[in-house]
């Protein structure tokens, strides 16, 4: 094993064969430039494990513009500015801008002290207001009516002298969608960096006081029990129980699609009605949960695709009938967390250290509801509604002949969508057919092929010269990147690593078993008892399988991710954030999952 001084340079990356022309999918400011060879970049596999469809880069561009605004301009983090991002072969690389001049740090520190101090001091009130604003923003994006461009305008345009025709609103409503999305991400980062800051400080304290403590153990002390991300799954369990209690459970057949199950329940008279009423109540808002993590347009919500919850319901019903309790033992979990905290506290050698522990952990518990719940509001609820709205624009563009199919919209950057809409609103006004089809169809077809060609590419974890020190709080806070991570990346792989996949050690324990790779949460019915789940991301949608599996492995997620929290509650080993497990592991292979070290070993072909 030899350590290197530099990773591959951005300019040395060659285009994946068959993906020629990928550059045209993304804006000019995302392309690597010659001077970027001098900077250190890393692949953001945590959020973007797949090649980016042109539209979906909005989930990089907008968050980075919001995050940087908060670190650089709003709170003035002393040492951290924002991040630059670049795209190569469809993958997103980022680099963090930092401040090193002590005078500059001092100047920023004064502002930071005041501004961050204000947010921490008023955290609970501000967070309560934040929730109201987020709900309003979700309502706003929901309420956007995509103009349907009828042959003739409604009479009211005349009788109420509105003075503005629908094609104007086509652009305005699309802009409003993008604006709401941008506002959501600003709110997302309004609290997030400060929240992570509290975690970071407590993590560091624990590592110093208990040098061998694992991240997952610290996470256990921080994590709350009653958080929104558990609600969708809890609702599903409640519905399963209601189905059994009402005696309508016979309608829930494993492997049958949601519509057929619903039709069967509808035929069950009063009892069926009661169950359906409960379903409707649960759907808003709890089924606004993404089947992924909300970063790609194909991460649909349960509401968008009922087959996900409906493939879980038969599992839960079967478990209930087998006499299993589905309820999360929240009281026991709270007691256990309190015990772990009390014992660690007791192990500290002095009262002063115990007081500092109380302060830091207390702050973590103050910020935790935001840090955990924002995911439901932002990445799940808002983002799935946002994509739904974009899809409506796609449907309009397909119906009017600008696109072949609605999903073509996701192969255009949002600024290109603007062009397609301009085309449509012009042609609608002119009374001539839109020109878009001939223009966009070959582009979209090529881009679809490019994405397929890019998919199997293994992006290097980092690019460019290895920095001497990377003890940067922002990098550590958001991506868990430290000098140690870099050292492990820069080490040439040895023979063992051909069978090893590394990720975050999310939940302790070591087990061996047979892998089941599920790319889609719809397939959870295929899972057999005792198998090891290998999946792209374990969002709450995957919760129903946790009672069947022996261990969980995911491409995306960190120690504080929902999957990690759930795995710890179930007491099963988990390795998350591997970036590549679903690509390298095949169903049927024997695996060893080491949730203590964060290593997955492929034991057999």
């Amino acid at each position, binding site marked *: 094993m030899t350590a290197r001084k530099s990773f591959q340079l951005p300019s040395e990356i060659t285009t994946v064969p068959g993906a020629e022309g990928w550059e045209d999918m993304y804006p000019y400011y995302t392309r690597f430039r010659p001077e970027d060879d001098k900077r250190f970049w890393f692949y953001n596999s945590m959020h973007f494990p797949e090649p980016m469809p042109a539209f979906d880069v909005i989930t990089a561009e907008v968050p980075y513009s919001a995050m940087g605004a908060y670190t650089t301009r709003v709170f003035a*983090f*002393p*040492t*951290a500015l924002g991040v630059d991002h670049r795209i190569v072969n469809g993958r997103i690389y980022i680099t963090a801008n930092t401040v*090193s001049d002590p005078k500059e*740090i001092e100047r920023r*520190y004064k502002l*930071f*002290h005041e501004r*961050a*101090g204000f947010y*921490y*001091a008023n955290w609970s009130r501000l967070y309560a207001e934040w929730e109201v604003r987020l709900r309003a923003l979700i309502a706003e994006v929901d309420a956007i009516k995509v103009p349907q461009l009828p042959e003739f305008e409604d009479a009211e345009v005349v009788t109420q002298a509105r003075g503005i025709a629908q094609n104007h609103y086509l652009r305005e409503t699309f802009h409003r969608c993008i604006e709401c999305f941008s506002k959501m991400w600003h709110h997302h980062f309004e609290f997030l960096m*400060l929240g992570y*800051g*509290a975690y*970071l*400080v407590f993590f*560091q*304290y624990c590592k*110093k*006081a*208990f*040098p*061998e*403590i*694992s991240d997952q*153990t610290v996470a*256990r002390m921080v994590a709350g029990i009653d958080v929104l991300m558990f609600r969708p799954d809890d609702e599903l369990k409640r519905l399963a129980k209601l189905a059994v209690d009402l005696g309508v459970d016979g309608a829930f057949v494993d492997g049958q699609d949601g519509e057929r199950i619903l039709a069967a329940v509808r035929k069950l008279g009063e009892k069926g009605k009661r169950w359906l009423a409960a379903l409707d109540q649960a759907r808003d808002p709890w089924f606004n949960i993404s089947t992924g993590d909300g970063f790609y347009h194909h991460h649909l919500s349960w509401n968008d695709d009922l087959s996900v919850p409906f493939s879980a319901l038969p599992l839960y019903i079967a478990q209930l009938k087998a006499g299993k309790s589905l309820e999360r033992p929240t009281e026991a979990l709270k007691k256990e967390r309190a015990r*772990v905290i009390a*014992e*660690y506290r007791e*192990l*500290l*050698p*002095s009262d*002063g*250290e115990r*007081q*500092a*522990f109380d*302060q*830091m952990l*207390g*702050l973590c518990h*103050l910020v935790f509801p935001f840090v955990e719940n924002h995911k439901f509001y932002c990445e799940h609820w808002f983002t799935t509604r946002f994509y739904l709205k974009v899809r409506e624009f796609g449907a309009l563009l397909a119906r009017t002949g600008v696109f072949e199919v609605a999903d073509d919209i996701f192969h255009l950057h949002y600024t290109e969508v603007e062009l397609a809409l301009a085309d449509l609103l012009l042609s609608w006004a002119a009374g001539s057919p839109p020109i878009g089809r001939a223009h966009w169809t070959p582009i979209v077809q090529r881009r679809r092929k490019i994405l397929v060609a890019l998919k199997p590419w293994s992006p290097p974890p980092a690019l460019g010269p290895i920095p001497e*020190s990377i*003890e*940067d*709080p922002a990098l*550590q806070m958001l991506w868990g990147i430290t000098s140690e991570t870099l050292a492990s990346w820069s080490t040439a792989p040895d023979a063992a690593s051909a069978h090893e996949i590394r990720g975050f050690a999310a939940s*302790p*324990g*070591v087990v061996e078993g047979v892998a089941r790779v599920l790319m889609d949460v719809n397939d959870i019915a295929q899972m057999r008892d005792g198998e090891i789940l290998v999946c792209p991301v374990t969002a709450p949608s995957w919760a129903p399988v946790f009672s069947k599996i022996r261990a969980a492995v995911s491409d995306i997620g960190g120690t504080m991710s929902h999957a990690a929290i759930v795995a710890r509650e179930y007491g099963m080993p988990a390795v998350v954030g591997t970036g590549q497990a679903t690509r390298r592991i095949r169903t049927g292979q024997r695996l060893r999952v080491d949730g*203590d070290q964060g290593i997955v070993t492929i034991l057999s072909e």
Partner: protein
Amino acid sequence: MANPRDFEVAWFDDIAIADRPAVGGKAASLGELTRAGIRVPPGFVITTHAFEQFLANIDPGASVRSTIGALDPDDLDAISRAAVGVRDTIRKAQLPAALRQSIAAASRKLAASETAVPVAVRSSATSEDSADASFAGLQHTALWVRGEDQVVAAIRDCWASLYSTESVSYRLRLRLPEQHCAMGVVVQRMVNAHCSGVMFTRSPTTGDRSVIAIEASWGLGSCIVGGEVTPDRYVVNKVTGDIVNRTVSQKSLRHVPGLATGGVRSEAVPADLQGIACLSDDELRGLALVGKRIERHYGAAQDIEWAIGRAESDEEGVFLLQSRPETVWANRAPEPVAAAKDKAFDHVIAALGRKSPGRP
């Protein structure tokens, strides 16, 4: 027991840590653990009172201690000559009849129904723990001793080891007063361990108080203590019970009872056992719980020897053989890791204001 100093033999149930001057460090600790409800193989101790009587018998002029105490710590030849003389005298001398009867009675009681139960005979010096732990290694231990004559011989060997050249020169160098130097001898039932080892209730490498480091190997513990085998190493989180590290090594040797002759002998570990973990997860957690209990009892990190008896015997499960305070980390006085601040968020603001949050 009112005061073990007045008796020749004292049972573990009757002694506590405060009885150390009367029974020696090892016996006091085993008594304390027994009374705290920890499972210790039953046994008794020949008190220092008995040792004093024995010494008075063989050294009526009370010259041994003053002679030894007057030696030059650097004159190893003189030390060696004097020590050999004392050891010979101890080994050849008869035990006082009353003491011999007490030992015989206690041995029968310890054996219960069996005729000759195998025991460990261990030195329990009064200075053992107060001085450097390495001193303990200079003391004699006899394992798997059977029969009264063998036990008495082993007791004499323990007493004699107080006068080994190394022990004597060690005391002289440390200027430990010879008058206060006495020795109890522990006679304790032996566990025919299928696996045994040591455990630190604090990380020996980092000093972390939240983990328990366990080393384990097949057979009797003498194999690990003697360094004849590379043991398996495990780290168990003291708070959560998680097993955070397992390093299983190739354990080719084990110590087993040398049945005919008494004592122990080395043998090859069967091939199929060599490379596998000698402790199950449940056993690891069980051990960690015991370690945690002992640490709580003493209020300080411990260095513990343990054994696990064979399954389906009446010795099944964990036994504690010895517990000493951990000394390496306890003697360091590290800077406090953090102090309370005016407001909780000051911690965050301070940390994010620095270039390297991990460093002060």
